[in-house]
């Protein structure tokens, strides 16, 4: 199976990579600003959520790609991968939550959930694609 991608897929993959880069840069930038800029008061709230904005953007781009992809087979493949990501994330965070409740695991920051989701989406890709090879 060749891996040629259509313009919609290209746009979505591009937005995922740009978003990952922006999250990394904005997280470091915001952390430094809080540490050395001594941010407090009303300004601290919008600044704190700045690293989340690229994440929200890529969620919108994912929705847009799924909604506009005309190739039903490719759309189904991505939806299966996203379901794999969702299932893996729910399973992991649920098990982790119970371990954490009994102090058998360290606290898992909610900001890690998004990274866990994409980790499972990434793991799902070869599994899903292998089924239709």
């Amino acid at each position, binding site marked *: *199976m*060749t891996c*040629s991608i*259509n313009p919609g897929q290209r746009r979505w993959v591009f937005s995922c990579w740009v978003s990952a880069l922006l999250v990394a840069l904005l997280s470091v930038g915001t952390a430094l600003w809080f540490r050395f800029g001594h941010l407090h008061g009303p300004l601290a709230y919008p600044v704190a959520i700045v690293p989340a904005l690229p994440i929200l953007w890529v969620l919108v781009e994912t929705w847009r790609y799924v909604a506009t992809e*005309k*190739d*039903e*087979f*490719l759309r*189904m493949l991505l939806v299966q991968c996203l379901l794999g990501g969702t299932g893996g994330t729910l399973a992991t965070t649920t098990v982790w939550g119970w371990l954490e409740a009994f102090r058998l695991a360290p606290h898992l920051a909610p900001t890690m959930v998004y990274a866990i989701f994409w980790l499972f989406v990434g793991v799902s890709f070869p599994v899903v694609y292998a*089924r*239709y090879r």
Partner: protein
Amino acid sequence: MKNRLKVLRAERDWSQGDLAQRLEVSRQSVNAIETGKFDPSLPLAFKLARLFGKPIEEIFSDEEQQCSESAS
């Protein structure tokens, strides 16, 4: 669901890529449909039927129906 896509395609000397281009889908989609790993939606099945100039039931066949017919 079984189908005669490969035969119909071969009769016209079309590659999977040629058929994909005519259907405006990816070659992976054509391959998945042809090998019976993916059942197309009704709109895509109608598009295939129009393209080959045949009714849908001449392109796709229901395996369960075939099994029950051969058993009786």
